[in-house]
Protein backbone atom coordinates (compact mmCIF):
# COMPACT_ATOMS: atom_id res chain seq x y z
CA UNK A 1 0.00 0.00 0.00
CA UNK A 2 1.19 3.51 -0.87
CA UNK A 3 0.03 6.16 1.62
CA UNK A 4 0.02 9.69 0.18
CA UNK A 5 -0.17 12.60 2.62
CA UNK A 6 -0.37 16.30 1.73
CA UNK A 7 -1.15 18.14 4.99
CA UNK A 8 1.29 19.76 7.41
CA UNK A 9 1.56 17.80 10.68
CA UNK A 10 0.86 20.97 12.66
CA UNK A 11 -2.24 21.79 10.63
CA UNK A 12 -3.95 18.37 10.70
CA UNK A 13 -3.23 14.94 12.11
CA UNK A 14 -3.07 13.19 8.71
CA UNK A 15 0.61 12.28 9.07
CA UNK A 16 0.01 10.85 12.52
CA UNK A 17 -3.08 8.90 11.41
CA UNK A 18 -1.36 7.48 8.34
CA UNK A 19 1.67 6.35 10.33
CA UNK A 20 -0.61 4.72 12.91
CA UNK A 21 -2.70 2.85 10.35
CA UNK A 22 -0.04 1.87 7.83
CA UNK A 23 0.94 -1.81 8.01
CA UNK A 24 4.55 -2.97 8.17
CA UNK A 25 6.27 -2.78 4.81
CA UNK A 26 4.00 -0.06 3.47
CA UNK A 27 5.29 2.97 1.65
CA UNK A 28 4.56 6.56 2.71
CA UNK A 29 4.92 9.49 0.32
CA UNK A 30 4.89 13.01 1.74
CA UNK A 31 3.84 15.69 -0.75
CA UNK A 32 2.84 19.39 -0.61
CA UNK A 33 2.61 20.64 3.01
CA UNK A 34 3.23 17.15 4.42
CA UNK A 35 6.91 17.48 3.45
CA UNK A 36 7.39 19.66 6.55
CA UNK A 37 7.06 16.47 8.61
CA UNK A 38 10.27 15.12 7.11
CA UNK A 39 12.46 18.07 8.08
CA UNK A 40 14.96 18.15 10.93
CA UNK A 41 13.67 19.98 13.98
CA UNK A 42 9.98 19.72 13.12
CA UNK A 43 7.91 18.37 16.00
CA UNK A 44 6.71 15.51 13.75
CA UNK A 45 10.27 14.42 12.97
CA UNK A 46 10.42 12.01 15.92
CA UNK A 47 7.27 10.23 14.71
CA UNK A 48 8.72 9.89 11.21
CA UNK A 49 11.99 8.63 12.67
CA UNK A 50 10.17 5.96 14.70
CA UNK A 51 8.04 4.94 11.71
CA UNK A 52 11.09 4.26 9.55
CA UNK A 53 11.60 0.94 11.33
CA UNK A 54 8.49 -0.47 9.64
CA UNK A 55 7.77 1.87 6.74
CA UNK A 56 9.65 3.28 3.78
CA UNK A 57 9.32 7.07 3.76
CA UNK A 58 9.57 9.23 0.64
CA UNK A 59 9.16 12.97 0.13
CA UNK A 60 8.50 14.83 -3.12
CA UNK A 61 11.59 16.88 -3.94
CA UNK A 62 9.96 19.72 -5.93
CA UNK A 63 7.61 20.34 -2.97
CA UNK A 64 10.57 20.49 -0.57
CA UNK A 65 12.39 22.95 -2.84
CA UNK A 66 9.30 25.14 -3.21
CA UNK A 67 9.23 25.47 0.59
CA UNK A 68 12.94 26.20 1.01
CA UNK A 69 13.55 22.84 2.72
CA UNK A 70 15.89 21.13 0.25
CA UNK A 71 18.77 21.01 2.76
CA UNK A 72 16.73 20.22 5.89
CA UNK A 73 15.46 16.72 5.07
CA UNK A 74 15.95 14.06 7.76
CA UNK A 75 18.35 11.22 7.09
CA UNK A 76 16.57 8.08 5.95
CA UNK A 77 13.88 9.89 3.96
CA UNK A 78 14.20 9.22 0.22
CA UNK A 79 13.47 11.96 -2.27
CA UNK A 80 11.53 11.42 -5.49
CA UNK A 81 10.62 13.68 -8.40
CA UNK A 82 7.32 13.50 -10.30
CA UNK A 83 8.49 10.50 -12.36
CA UNK A 84 9.43 8.75 -9.10
CA UNK A 85 5.96 9.53 -7.74
CA UNK A 86 4.42 7.79 -10.75
CA UNK A 87 6.76 4.81 -10.28
CA UNK A 88 5.67 4.44 -6.63
CA UNK A 89 2.01 4.44 -7.63
CA UNK A 90 2.69 1.86 -10.37
CA UNK A 91 4.78 -0.41 -8.13
CA UNK A 92 2.31 -0.59 -5.25
CA UNK A 93 -0.84 -2.73 -5.55
CA UNK A 94 -3.03 0.00 -4.05
CA UNK A 95 -2.82 3.47 -2.63
CA UNK A 96 -4.56 5.74 -0.19
CA UNK A 97 -4.64 9.54 -0.01
CA UNK A 98 -4.93 10.94 3.49
CA UNK A 99 -6.90 14.18 3.47
Amino acid at each position, binding site marked *: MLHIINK*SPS*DRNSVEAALRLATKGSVVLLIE*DAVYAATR*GNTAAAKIQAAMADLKIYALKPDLE*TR*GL*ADRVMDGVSLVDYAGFVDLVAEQPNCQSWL
Partner: protein
Amino acid sequence: MSDDMDMEDGGTIKKFMFVNRKAPYGTIYALEALEVVLISAAFEQDVSMAFVDDGVYQLMKGINSEGTELKNFSKTYRALDGYDIEKLYVEQESLEARGLTEDDLLVDVTVMSAAELAATMAEQDVVISH
Protein backbone atom coordinates in the same frame (compact mmCIF):
# COMPACT_ATOMS: atom_id res chain seq x y z
CA MET B 1 -19.04 55.52 16.72
CA SER B 2 -17.23 58.83 16.60
CA ASP B 3 -13.86 57.12 16.04
CA ASP B 4 -15.11 55.57 12.83
CA MET B 5 -16.39 58.94 11.64
CA ASP B 6 -12.96 60.43 12.23
CA MET B 7 -11.37 57.73 10.08
CA GLU B 8 -13.33 58.90 7.04
CA ASP B 9 -11.72 62.31 7.43
CA GLY B 10 -8.33 60.63 7.49
CA GLY B 11 -8.08 61.54 11.18
CA THR B 12 -7.81 58.32 13.13
CA ILE B 13 -5.08 55.80 12.53
CA LYS B 14 -5.94 52.34 13.79
CA LYS B 15 -3.68 49.46 14.62
CA PHE B 16 -4.20 46.50 12.29
CA MET B 17 -2.50 43.15 12.79
CA PHE B 18 -2.59 40.44 10.16
CA VAL B 19 -2.02 37.04 11.76
CA ASN B 20 -0.56 34.36 9.49
CA ARG B 21 -0.79 30.75 10.67
CA LYS B 22 -0.70 28.72 7.44
CA ALA B 23 2.21 27.31 5.49
CA PRO B 24 2.68 28.93 2.06
CA TYR B 25 2.01 27.16 -1.27
CA GLY B 26 -0.15 24.29 0.09
CA THR B 27 -3.13 26.61 0.46
CA ILE B 28 -3.96 30.08 -0.85
CA TYR B 29 -4.13 31.73 2.60
CA ALA B 30 -0.56 33.08 2.70
CA LEU B 31 -0.70 34.67 -0.75
CA GLU B 32 -4.17 36.13 -0.10
CA ALA B 33 -3.01 37.60 3.22
CA LEU B 34 0.01 39.17 1.55
CA GLU B 35 -2.14 40.82 -1.12
CA VAL B 36 -4.57 42.14 1.50
CA VAL B 37 -1.66 43.58 3.48
CA LEU B 38 -0.22 45.31 0.39
CA ILE B 39 -3.61 46.80 -0.42
CA SER B 40 -4.12 47.89 3.18
CA ALA B 41 -0.93 49.95 2.92
CA ALA B 42 -2.84 52.40 0.71
CA PHE B 43 -5.06 53.34 3.67
CA GLU B 44 -2.07 54.53 5.67
CA GLN B 45 -2.95 52.66 8.83
CA ASP B 46 -0.62 51.23 11.47
CA VAL B 47 -0.17 47.75 9.99
CA SER B 48 1.75 44.82 11.40
CA MET B 49 2.04 41.16 10.45
CA ALA B 50 2.42 38.30 12.90
CA PHE B 51 3.76 34.88 11.88
CA VAL B 52 2.68 32.04 14.13
CA ASP B 53 2.59 28.22 13.84
CA ASP B 54 3.12 27.09 10.21
CA GLY B 55 2.91 30.76 9.21
CA VAL B 56 6.60 31.12 10.04
CA TYR B 57 7.34 28.93 7.02
CA GLN B 58 6.11 31.79 4.80
CA LEU B 59 9.37 33.61 5.47
CA MET B 60 11.77 30.75 4.63
CA LYS B 61 14.90 31.57 2.68
CA GLY B 62 16.04 29.42 -0.23
CA ILE B 63 12.69 28.89 -1.97
CA ASN B 64 13.02 27.34 -5.43
CA SER B 65 9.64 26.77 -7.04
CA GLU B 66 10.84 25.81 -10.52
CA GLY B 67 9.96 22.16 -9.96
CA THR B 68 6.35 22.82 -8.96
CA GLU B 69 6.01 25.77 -11.36
CA LEU B 70 4.28 27.75 -8.60
CA LYS B 71 4.79 31.51 -8.40
CA ASN B 72 7.58 32.25 -5.91
CA PHE B 73 5.76 34.91 -3.90
CA SER B 74 8.31 34.66 -1.10
CA LYS B 75 10.15 37.45 -2.93
CA THR B 76 7.18 39.70 -2.30
CA TYR B 77 7.78 39.76 1.47
CA ARG B 78 10.91 41.76 0.67
CA ALA B 79 8.72 44.43 -0.98
CA LEU B 80 6.84 45.09 2.28
CA ASP B 81 9.49 47.55 3.40
CA GLY B 82 8.82 49.72 0.33
CA TYR B 83 5.12 49.71 1.29
CA ASP B 84 6.15 51.01 4.76
CA ILE B 85 5.13 47.76 6.42
CA GLU B 86 8.03 47.22 8.76
CA LYS B 87 6.47 45.51 11.77
CA LEU B 88 6.91 41.80 11.17
CA TYR B 89 6.56 39.74 14.34
CA VAL B 90 7.55 36.09 14.57
CA GLU B 91 6.71 33.89 17.52
CA GLN B 92 9.79 32.29 19.06
CA GLU B 93 7.93 29.14 20.13
CA SER B 94 6.72 28.52 16.57
CA LEU B 95 10.26 28.80 15.20
CA GLU B 96 11.58 26.40 17.84
CA ALA B 97 8.86 23.81 17.17
CA ARG B 98 10.12 23.70 13.57
CA GLY B 99 13.84 23.68 14.25
CA LEU B 100 14.19 27.19 12.76
CA THR B 101 16.01 30.34 13.82
CA GLU B 102 15.83 33.96 12.68
CA ASP B 103 18.73 33.21 10.29
CA ASP B 104 16.47 30.92 8.26
CA LEU B 105 14.14 33.83 7.40
CA LEU B 106 14.45 36.04 4.32
CA VAL B 107 13.47 39.40 5.84
CA ASP B 108 14.31 41.27 9.05
CA VAL B 109 11.77 40.41 11.72
CA THR B 110 11.19 40.94 15.42
CA VAL B 111 11.20 37.59 17.20
CA MET B 112 8.88 37.62 20.22
CA SER B 113 7.92 35.16 22.91
CA ALA B 114 4.30 34.00 22.98
CA ALA B 115 3.72 36.27 25.98
CA GLU B 116 5.14 39.34 24.18
CA LEU B 117 3.17 38.58 21.03
CA ALA B 118 -0.01 38.07 23.06
CA ALA B 119 0.43 41.49 24.63
CA THR B 120 1.06 43.12 21.23
CA MET B 121 -1.99 41.35 19.79
CA ALA B 122 -4.17 42.56 22.65
CA GLU B 123 -3.20 46.19 21.88
CA GLN B 124 -4.62 46.06 18.34
CA ASP B 125 -7.81 47.75 17.17
CA VAL B 126 -8.34 45.13 14.46
CA VAL B 127 -6.87 41.63 14.12
CA ILE B 128 -7.34 39.78 10.83
CA SER B 129 -6.47 36.11 10.69
CA HIS B 130 -5.42 34.00 7.73
